[in-house]
Protein backbone atom coordinates (compact mmCIF):
# COMPACT_ATOMS: atom_id res chain seq x y z
CA UNK A 1 0.00 0.00 0.00
CA UNK A 2 2.95 2.33 -0.39
CA UNK A 3 1.82 4.94 -2.89
CA UNK A 4 4.76 7.27 -2.59
CA UNK A 5 6.40 8.56 -5.74
CA UNK A 6 9.63 10.54 -5.89
CA UNK A 7 8.10 13.84 -6.92
CA UNK A 8 5.86 15.66 -9.36
CA UNK A 9 7.62 14.42 -12.51
CA UNK A 10 7.06 10.79 -11.55
CA UNK A 11 3.57 11.55 -10.24
CA UNK A 12 2.30 12.83 -13.59
CA UNK A 13 3.69 9.87 -15.56
CA UNK A 14 1.05 8.56 -17.93
CA UNK A 15 -0.66 11.88 -18.48
CA UNK A 16 -0.82 12.06 -22.26
CA UNK A 17 -2.02 14.46 -24.92
CA UNK A 18 -5.80 14.71 -25.14
CA UNK A 19 -6.54 13.46 -21.64
CA UNK A 20 -9.04 14.90 -19.16
CA UNK A 21 -7.63 16.18 -15.87
CA UNK A 22 -9.24 17.44 -12.72
CA UNK A 23 -7.25 20.04 -10.85
CA UNK A 24 -8.15 20.92 -7.27
CA UNK A 25 -8.18 24.37 -5.76
CA UNK A 26 -10.42 27.41 -5.55
CA UNK A 27 -8.94 30.55 -7.02
CA UNK A 28 -5.27 30.24 -6.10
CA UNK A 29 -6.07 28.50 -2.81
CA UNK A 30 -5.07 24.86 -2.48
CA UNK A 31 -3.50 24.50 -5.93
CA UNK A 32 -1.33 21.48 -6.76
CA UNK A 33 1.56 23.80 -7.57
CA UNK A 34 4.21 21.11 -8.00
CA UNK A 35 2.18 19.05 -10.43
CA UNK A 36 1.17 22.10 -12.46
CA UNK A 37 4.86 23.01 -12.79
CA UNK A 38 5.63 19.44 -13.89
CA UNK A 39 2.82 19.50 -16.44
CA UNK A 40 4.13 22.76 -17.87
CA UNK A 41 7.61 21.24 -18.10
CA UNK A 42 6.30 18.03 -19.71
CA UNK A 43 4.73 19.90 -22.61
CA UNK A 44 1.68 17.59 -22.63
CA UNK A 45 -1.09 19.24 -24.64
CA UNK A 46 -4.68 19.11 -25.92
CA UNK A 47 -5.80 18.68 -22.33
CA UNK A 48 -9.33 19.07 -21.06
CA UNK A 49 -9.06 20.60 -17.60
CA UNK A 50 -11.86 20.45 -15.04
CA UNK A 51 -11.12 23.07 -12.43
CA UNK A 52 -13.28 25.66 -10.71
CA UNK A 53 -11.08 28.49 -11.98
CA UNK A 54 -8.37 28.94 -14.56
CA UNK A 55 -5.71 30.55 -12.42
CA UNK A 56 -4.26 33.96 -13.16
CA UNK A 57 -1.93 34.89 -16.01
CA UNK A 58 1.25 33.77 -14.30
CA UNK A 59 0.08 31.27 -11.69
CA UNK A 60 -1.93 28.09 -11.50
CA UNK A 61 -3.56 26.77 -14.68
CA UNK A 62 -2.72 30.15 -16.24
CA UNK A 63 0.80 28.76 -16.70
CA UNK A 64 -0.55 25.85 -18.75
CA UNK A 65 -2.78 28.16 -20.77
CA UNK A 66 0.20 30.33 -21.62
CA UNK A 67 1.96 27.25 -23.05
CA UNK A 68 -1.20 26.45 -25.05
CA UNK A 69 -1.50 23.04 -23.37
CA UNK A 70 -5.23 23.31 -22.70
CA UNK A 71 -7.78 22.54 -25.37
CA UNK A 72 -10.83 22.89 -23.18
CA UNK A 73 -11.60 24.30 -19.74
CA UNK A 74 -14.58 23.19 -17.69
CA UNK A 75 -14.97 25.77 -14.92
CA UNK A 76 -17.48 27.87 -13.03
CA UNK A 77 -15.62 31.17 -12.92
CA UNK A 78 -12.76 32.28 -15.11
CA UNK A 79 -12.29 35.98 -14.48
CA UNK A 80 -8.91 37.35 -13.46
CA UNK A 81 -7.06 35.92 -16.44
CA UNK A 82 -6.32 38.07 -19.51
CA UNK A 83 -4.61 35.31 -21.50
CA UNK A 84 -7.59 33.05 -20.90
CA UNK A 85 -9.95 35.71 -22.18
CA UNK A 86 -7.79 36.30 -25.24
CA UNK A 87 -7.73 32.58 -26.16
CA UNK A 88 -11.45 32.30 -25.53
CA UNK A 89 -12.40 35.27 -27.69
CA UNK A 90 -10.04 34.17 -30.49
CA UNK A 91 -11.56 30.69 -30.45
CA UNK A 92 -8.29 28.93 -29.56
CA UNK A 93 -9.73 27.69 -26.28
CA UNK A 94 -12.98 25.86 -25.76
CA UNK A 95 -14.76 26.71 -22.52
CA UNK A 96 -17.69 25.11 -20.76
CA UNK A 97 -18.98 27.22 -17.89
CA UNK A 98 -21.09 25.35 -15.36
CA UNK A 99 -22.49 26.27 -11.96
CA UNK A 100 -20.03 25.79 -9.12
CA UNK A 101 -22.26 23.45 -7.15
CA UNK A 102 -22.93 21.38 -10.26
CA UNK A 103 -19.19 21.16 -10.88
CA UNK A 104 -18.53 19.99 -7.32
CA UNK A 105 -21.41 17.54 -7.27
CA UNK A 106 -20.49 16.00 -10.64
CA UNK A 107 -17.09 15.27 -9.07
CA UNK A 108 -18.78 13.90 -5.98
CA UNK A 109 -21.01 11.66 -8.07
CA UNK A 110 -17.94 10.16 -9.75
CA UNK A 111 -16.39 9.45 -6.35
CA UNK A 112 -19.62 7.93 -5.07
CA UNK A 113 -20.13 5.74 -8.13
CA UNK A 114 -23.30 7.48 -9.24
CA UNK A 115 -23.75 8.15 -12.96
CA UNK A 116 -25.75 11.35 -12.62
CA UNK A 117 -27.23 13.89 -10.27
CA UNK A 118 -30.32 16.10 -10.36
CA UNK A 119 -29.90 19.76 -9.50
CA UNK A 120 -32.13 22.82 -9.86
CA UNK A 121 -29.12 25.00 -10.73
CA UNK A 122 -29.45 26.31 -14.27
CA UNK A 123 -33.14 25.57 -14.77
CA UNK A 124 -34.57 28.19 -17.13
CA UNK A 125 -31.10 29.34 -18.22
CA UNK A 126 -28.77 28.53 -21.11
CA UNK A 127 -27.10 25.92 -18.88
CA UNK A 128 -30.23 23.77 -19.28
CA UNK A 129 -30.10 23.68 -23.08
CA UNK A 130 -30.04 20.10 -24.36
CA UNK A 131 -30.26 18.55 -20.89
CA UNK A 132 -32.89 16.23 -19.50
CA UNK A 133 -35.27 17.91 -17.05
CA UNK A 134 -37.09 15.89 -14.42
CA UNK A 135 -39.79 17.10 -12.09
CA UNK A 136 -39.66 15.94 -8.48
CA UNK A 137 -42.29 17.14 -6.00
CA UNK A 138 -43.34 19.98 -8.27
CA UNK A 139 -39.87 21.38 -8.93
CA UNK A 140 -37.74 21.01 -12.06
CA UNK A 141 -34.24 19.58 -11.89
CA UNK A 142 -31.53 19.17 -14.51
CA UNK A 143 -29.85 15.85 -14.95
CA UNK A 144 -26.09 16.34 -14.87
CA UNK A 145 -23.65 13.51 -15.49
CA UNK A 146 -20.80 12.42 -13.27
CA UNK A 147 -17.45 13.56 -14.59
CA UNK A 148 -14.99 11.12 -16.03
CA UNK A 149 -11.41 12.18 -15.55
CA UNK A 150 -8.28 10.25 -16.50
CA UNK A 151 -6.38 11.90 -13.67
CA UNK A 152 -7.37 13.97 -10.66
CA UNK A 153 -4.59 16.11 -9.21
CA UNK A 154 -5.08 17.49 -5.73
CA UNK A 155 -3.17 19.30 -3.04
CA UNK A 156 -3.52 18.42 0.65
CA UNK A 157 -1.88 19.68 3.82
CA UNK A 158 -0.82 16.35 5.26
CA UNK A 159 -0.86 12.89 3.84
CA UNK A 160 0.52 9.50 4.75
CA UNK A 161 2.25 6.94 2.57
CA UNK A 162 -1.03 5.02 2.25
CA UNK A 163 -2.64 8.04 0.60
CA UNK A 164 -4.82 9.27 3.47
CA UNK A 165 -5.23 13.04 3.23
CA UNK A 166 -6.00 15.98 5.48
CA UNK A 167 -6.62 19.44 4.06
CA UNK A 168 -6.13 22.76 5.79
CA UNK A 169 -8.84 25.42 6.12
CA UNK A 170 -10.55 26.52 2.90
CA UNK A 171 -7.85 24.83 0.82
CA UNK A 172 -10.07 21.75 1.14
CA UNK A 173 -12.52 23.21 -1.43
CA UNK A 174 -12.53 21.11 -4.61
CA UNK A 175 -9.53 19.04 -3.58
CA UNK A 176 -11.53 16.69 -1.39
CA UNK A 177 -14.21 16.01 -4.03
CA UNK A 178 -11.80 15.70 -6.95
CA UNK A 179 -9.55 13.35 -4.98
CA UNK A 180 -12.42 10.86 -5.09
CA UNK A 181 -13.15 11.32 -8.75
CA UNK A 182 -10.10 10.48 -10.84
CA UNK A 183 -9.43 7.13 -12.50
CA UNK A 184 -5.96 7.87 -11.14
CA UNK A 185 -5.64 10.37 -8.30
CA UNK A 186 -2.38 12.16 -7.59
CA UNK A 187 -1.98 13.95 -4.27
CA UNK A 188 0.78 16.38 -3.44
CA UNK A 189 1.07 17.27 0.21
CA UNK A 190 2.97 19.75 2.31
CA UNK A 191 3.93 17.09 4.80
CA UNK A 192 4.17 13.38 4.12
CA UNK A 193 4.05 11.14 7.19
CA UNK A 194 4.13 7.46 8.06
CA UNK A 195 0.95 5.39 8.60
CA UNK A 196 -0.33 5.89 12.13
CA UNK A 197 0.70 9.51 12.36
CA UNK A 198 -2.64 10.83 11.10
CA UNK A 199 -5.58 10.38 13.44
CA UNK A 200 -8.06 8.24 11.44
CA UNK A 201 -10.89 10.28 12.95
CA UNK A 202 -9.64 13.35 11.16
CA UNK A 203 -8.77 11.96 7.74
CA UNK A 204 -10.73 13.81 5.05
CA UNK A 205 -9.89 11.62 2.06
CA UNK A 206 -9.40 7.90 2.69
CA UNK A 207 -6.31 6.53 0.98
CA UNK A 208 -8.33 4.12 -1.17
CA UNK A 209 -9.07 7.05 -3.48
CA UNK A 210 -5.42 8.07 -3.85
CA UNK A 211 -2.98 6.28 -6.15
CA UNK A 212 0.16 8.40 -6.02
CA UNK A 213 1.40 10.71 -3.30
CA UNK A 214 4.47 12.85 -2.70
CA UNK A 215 5.68 15.68 -0.52
CA UNK A 216 5.79 18.86 -2.56
CA UNK A 217 8.42 21.55 -2.28
CA UNK A 218 8.65 25.31 -2.54
CA UNK A 219 4.98 26.17 -2.16
CA UNK A 220 4.38 29.76 -3.10
CA UNK A 221 0.71 29.80 -1.97
CA UNK A 222 -0.01 33.04 -3.71
CA UNK A 223 -2.83 35.23 -2.38
CA UNK A 224 -5.29 36.54 -4.98
CA UNK A 225 -6.99 39.27 -2.92
CA UNK A 226 -4.97 40.37 0.08
CA UNK A 227 -7.53 42.01 2.34
CA UNK A 228 -6.57 43.10 5.84
CA UNK A 229 -7.70 45.38 8.62
CA UNK A 230 -5.48 47.66 10.64
CA UNK A 231 -4.77 47.02 14.28
CA UNK A 232 -6.22 49.86 16.33
Amino acid at each position, binding site marked *: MNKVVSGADEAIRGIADGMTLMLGG*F*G*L*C*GLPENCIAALVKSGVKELTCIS*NNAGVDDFGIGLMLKQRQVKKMI*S*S*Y*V*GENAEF*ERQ*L*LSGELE*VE*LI*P*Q*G*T*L*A*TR*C*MAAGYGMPAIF*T*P*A*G*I*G*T*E*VAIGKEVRNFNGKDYLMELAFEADFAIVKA*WKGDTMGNLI*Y*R*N*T*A*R*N*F*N*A*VMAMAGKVTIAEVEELVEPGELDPNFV*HTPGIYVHRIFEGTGYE*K*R*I*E*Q*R*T*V*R*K*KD
Partner: protein
Amino acid sequence: MLDKQGIAKRIAREIKDGYYVNLGIGIPTLVANYIPETMDVVLQSENGLLGMGPFPFEGEEDPDTINAGKQTITMLPGSSIFDSAMSFGMIRAKKVNLTILGAMEVSENGDIANWKIPGKMVKGMGGAMDLVASAENIIVAMQHVNKAGESKLLPECTLPLTGINCVKKIVTELAVLDVLPGGGFKLLERAPGISVEEIINATAGKLIIEGDVPEMVI
Protein backbone atom coordinates in the same frame (compact mmCIF):
# COMPACT_ATOMS: atom_id res chain seq x y z
CA MET B 1 -30.51 58.37 -2.05
CA LEU B 2 -28.42 55.61 -0.46
CA ASP B 3 -24.77 54.94 -1.13
CA LYS B 4 -23.44 51.38 -1.20
CA GLN B 5 -22.93 51.38 2.54
CA GLY B 6 -26.50 52.58 2.98
CA ILE B 7 -27.86 49.74 0.85
CA ALA B 8 -25.81 47.27 2.88
CA LYS B 9 -27.03 48.82 6.12
CA ARG B 10 -30.68 48.55 5.06
CA ILE B 11 -30.26 44.93 3.98
CA ALA B 12 -28.66 44.08 7.32
CA ARG B 13 -32.02 44.86 8.91
CA GLU B 14 -33.48 41.83 7.08
CA ILE B 15 -31.16 39.48 8.94
CA LYS B 16 -32.63 37.73 11.93
CA ASP B 17 -31.03 36.24 15.00
CA GLY B 18 -29.96 32.66 14.36
CA TYR B 19 -29.68 33.01 10.59
CA TYR B 20 -27.11 31.32 8.41
CA VAL B 21 -26.41 33.83 5.64
CA ASN B 22 -24.57 33.68 2.32
CA LEU B 23 -23.24 37.02 1.12
CA GLY B 24 -22.31 37.52 -2.53
CA ILE B 25 -19.51 39.67 -3.90
CA GLY B 26 -19.79 43.48 -3.99
CA ILE B 27 -22.40 45.35 -1.93
CA PRO B 28 -23.57 42.12 -0.21
CA THR B 29 -20.11 41.67 1.31
CA LEU B 30 -20.54 45.05 3.03
CA VAL B 31 -23.66 43.79 4.81
CA ALA B 32 -21.43 41.88 7.25
CA ASN B 33 -20.29 45.23 8.70
CA TYR B 34 -23.83 46.11 9.81
CA ILE B 35 -25.02 42.93 11.50
CA PRO B 36 -25.69 43.92 15.13
CA GLU B 37 -23.21 42.35 17.53
CA THR B 38 -26.07 41.22 19.72
CA MET B 39 -27.23 38.88 16.96
CA ASP B 40 -26.06 35.33 16.48
CA VAL B 41 -25.50 35.13 12.74
CA VAL B 42 -23.24 32.68 10.91
CA LEU B 43 -21.85 33.65 7.51
CA GLN B 44 -21.42 30.94 4.89
CA SER B 45 -18.76 31.22 2.24
CA GLU B 46 -19.51 28.79 -0.56
CA ASN B 47 -15.90 27.76 -1.09
CA GLY B 48 -16.40 25.79 2.12
CA LEU B 49 -16.67 27.72 5.36
CA LEU B 50 -19.30 28.47 7.98
CA GLY B 51 -18.31 31.10 10.50
CA MET B 52 -16.52 33.61 8.33
CA GLY B 53 -14.97 36.43 10.35
CA PRO B 54 -13.50 39.81 9.44
CA PHE B 55 -10.38 40.41 7.37
CA PRO B 56 -7.18 39.39 9.19
CA PHE B 57 -4.89 41.95 10.76
CA GLU B 58 -2.01 43.04 8.59
CA GLY B 59 0.67 40.35 8.61
CA GLU B 60 -1.75 37.63 9.68
CA GLU B 61 -3.11 36.79 6.22
CA ASP B 62 -3.31 33.05 5.56
CA PRO B 63 -3.37 31.91 1.92
CA ASP B 64 -5.32 28.80 2.98
CA THR B 65 -8.10 30.88 4.50
CA ILE B 66 -10.13 32.82 1.93
CA ASN B 67 -13.74 33.58 1.12
CA ALA B 68 -15.67 33.02 -2.10
CA GLY B 69 -14.39 36.36 -3.37
CA LYS B 70 -10.85 35.01 -2.91
CA GLN B 71 -10.20 37.58 -0.16
CA THR B 72 -8.15 36.67 2.87
CA ILE B 73 -10.45 36.32 5.86
CA THR B 74 -10.52 34.89 9.37
CA MET B 75 -12.57 32.15 10.99
CA LEU B 76 -14.60 32.84 14.10
CA PRO B 77 -14.80 30.45 17.07
CA GLY B 78 -17.25 27.69 16.15
CA SER B 79 -16.36 27.74 12.45
CA SER B 80 -16.48 24.64 10.31
CA ILE B 81 -14.76 23.73 7.06
CA PHE B 82 -16.16 21.47 4.36
CA ASP B 83 -15.60 20.63 0.72
CA SER B 84 -17.32 22.30 -2.22
CA ALA B 85 -19.85 19.50 -2.73
CA MET B 86 -21.08 19.72 0.86
CA SER B 87 -21.10 23.49 0.65
CA PHE B 88 -23.59 23.43 -2.19
CA GLY B 89 -25.34 20.50 -0.56
CA MET B 90 -26.31 22.69 2.38
CA ILE B 91 -27.37 25.43 -0.04
CA ARG B 92 -29.50 23.04 -2.12
CA ALA B 93 -31.00 21.51 1.02
CA LYS B 94 -32.11 25.02 2.10
CA LYS B 95 -30.10 25.06 5.30
CA VAL B 96 -28.88 28.57 4.49
CA ASN B 97 -31.60 30.99 5.62
CA LEU B 98 -30.78 34.04 3.55
CA THR B 99 -28.86 34.71 0.36
CA ILE B 100 -27.86 38.24 -0.58
CA LEU B 101 -26.41 38.88 -4.00
CA GLY B 102 -25.91 41.50 -6.66
CA ALA B 103 -27.63 41.64 -10.04
CA MET B 104 -27.45 43.31 -13.43
CA GLU B 105 -31.19 42.88 -14.03
CA VAL B 106 -34.23 41.58 -12.16
CA SER B 107 -37.58 40.98 -13.82
CA GLU B 108 -41.01 41.57 -12.32
CA ASN B 109 -41.51 37.81 -11.91
CA GLY B 110 -38.27 37.44 -9.95
CA ASP B 111 -35.92 36.28 -12.70
CA ILE B 112 -32.35 37.40 -12.20
CA ALA B 113 -29.48 38.04 -14.62
CA ASN B 114 -26.06 38.60 -13.11
CA TRP B 115 -23.44 36.46 -14.77
CA LYS B 116 -22.94 37.27 -18.40
CA ILE B 117 -22.99 40.07 -20.93
CA PRO B 118 -22.77 38.38 -24.33
CA GLY B 119 -19.65 39.47 -26.21
CA LYS B 120 -18.41 41.52 -23.27
CA MET B 121 -18.19 39.64 -20.03
CA VAL B 122 -17.61 35.92 -19.93
CA LYS B 123 -16.35 35.30 -16.45
CA GLY B 124 -18.80 32.58 -15.47
CA MET B 125 -21.59 32.13 -12.97
CA GLY B 126 -19.56 30.77 -10.07
CA GLY B 127 -22.01 29.68 -7.39
CA ALA B 128 -24.76 32.14 -8.31
CA MET B 129 -26.92 29.71 -10.29
CA ASP B 130 -26.85 27.15 -7.50
CA LEU B 131 -27.72 29.77 -4.91
CA VAL B 132 -30.65 31.31 -6.75
CA ALA B 133 -32.05 27.93 -7.80
CA SER B 134 -32.27 26.65 -4.25
CA ALA B 135 -32.42 29.50 -1.76
CA GLU B 136 -35.88 30.33 -0.43
CA ASN B 137 -35.02 33.81 0.72
CA ILE B 138 -33.09 35.85 -1.82
CA ILE B 139 -32.43 39.57 -1.50
CA VAL B 140 -30.83 41.44 -4.36
CA ALA B 141 -28.60 44.42 -3.64
CA MET B 142 -28.09 46.60 -6.69
CA GLN B 143 -28.34 50.02 -8.28
CA HIS B 144 -31.81 50.85 -9.56
CA VAL B 145 -30.49 51.96 -12.96
CA ASN B 146 -27.37 50.99 -14.92
CA LYS B 147 -24.55 53.29 -15.96
CA ALA B 148 -26.46 54.21 -19.13
CA GLY B 149 -29.38 55.35 -16.97
CA GLU B 150 -31.61 52.40 -17.93
CA SER B 151 -33.76 50.66 -15.35
CA LYS B 152 -32.50 47.34 -14.00
CA LEU B 153 -35.99 46.43 -12.76
CA LEU B 154 -37.59 45.16 -15.94
CA PRO B 155 -40.70 43.44 -17.28
CA GLU B 156 -38.32 40.75 -18.55
CA CYS B 157 -34.56 40.35 -18.29
CA THR B 158 -32.65 41.04 -21.50
CA LEU B 159 -29.37 39.46 -20.39
CA PRO B 160 -28.79 35.69 -20.05
CA LEU B 161 -30.60 34.46 -16.96
CA THR B 162 -28.99 33.18 -13.79
CA GLY B 163 -32.26 31.84 -12.39
CA ILE B 164 -36.02 32.16 -12.70
CA ASN B 165 -38.79 33.16 -10.26
CA CYS B 166 -36.40 33.40 -7.37
CA VAL B 167 -35.80 36.97 -6.17
CA LYS B 168 -37.97 37.91 -3.20
CA LYS B 169 -36.74 41.38 -2.29
CA ILE B 170 -34.65 44.14 -3.86
CA VAL B 171 -32.83 46.95 -2.10
CA THR B 172 -31.49 49.75 -4.30
CA GLU B 173 -30.18 53.26 -3.72
CA LEU B 174 -33.78 54.45 -4.23
CA ALA B 175 -36.10 51.90 -2.70
CA VAL B 176 -36.96 48.62 -1.03
CA LEU B 177 -39.26 46.45 -3.13
CA ASP B 178 -40.81 43.02 -2.81
CA VAL B 179 -41.21 40.81 -5.85
CA LEU B 180 -44.76 39.53 -5.56
CA PRO B 181 -45.47 35.83 -6.18
CA GLY B 182 -47.93 36.78 -8.93
CA GLY B 183 -45.46 39.21 -10.52
CA GLY B 184 -44.69 42.88 -10.04
CA PHE B 185 -42.43 45.00 -7.86
CA LYS B 186 -44.25 46.17 -4.77
CA LEU B 187 -42.80 49.41 -3.46
CA LEU B 188 -42.28 49.09 0.30
CA GLU B 189 -39.97 51.95 1.25
CA ARG B 190 -38.37 55.03 -0.27
CA ALA B 191 -34.75 55.97 0.35
CA PRO B 192 -34.30 59.20 2.32
CA GLY B 193 -35.04 62.18 0.10
CA ILE B 194 -36.41 60.10 -2.78
CA SER B 195 -39.94 60.63 -4.07
CA VAL B 196 -42.31 57.96 -5.33
CA GLU B 197 -42.19 59.79 -8.66
CA GLU B 198 -38.43 59.23 -8.95
CA ILE B 199 -38.87 55.52 -8.24
CA ILE B 200 -41.63 55.25 -10.85
CA ASN B 201 -39.34 56.90 -13.40
CA ALA B 202 -36.48 54.53 -12.61
CA THR B 203 -38.57 51.33 -12.74
CA ALA B 204 -39.37 49.80 -16.14
CA GLY B 205 -41.19 46.74 -14.82
CA LYS B 206 -44.65 46.65 -13.29
CA LEU B 207 -44.55 48.74 -10.11
CA ILE B 208 -47.23 48.29 -7.48
CA ILE B 209 -47.84 51.17 -5.09
CA GLU B 210 -50.42 50.92 -2.34
CA GLY B 211 -51.12 53.87 -0.09
CA ASP B 212 -48.40 55.98 1.43
CA VAL B 213 -44.89 54.65 0.95
CA PRO B 214 -42.80 55.31 4.04
CA GLU B 215 -39.23 56.55 3.99
CA MET B 216 -36.87 53.81 5.03
CA VAL B 217 -35.29 53.71 8.43
CA ILE B 218 -31.64 52.74 8.36
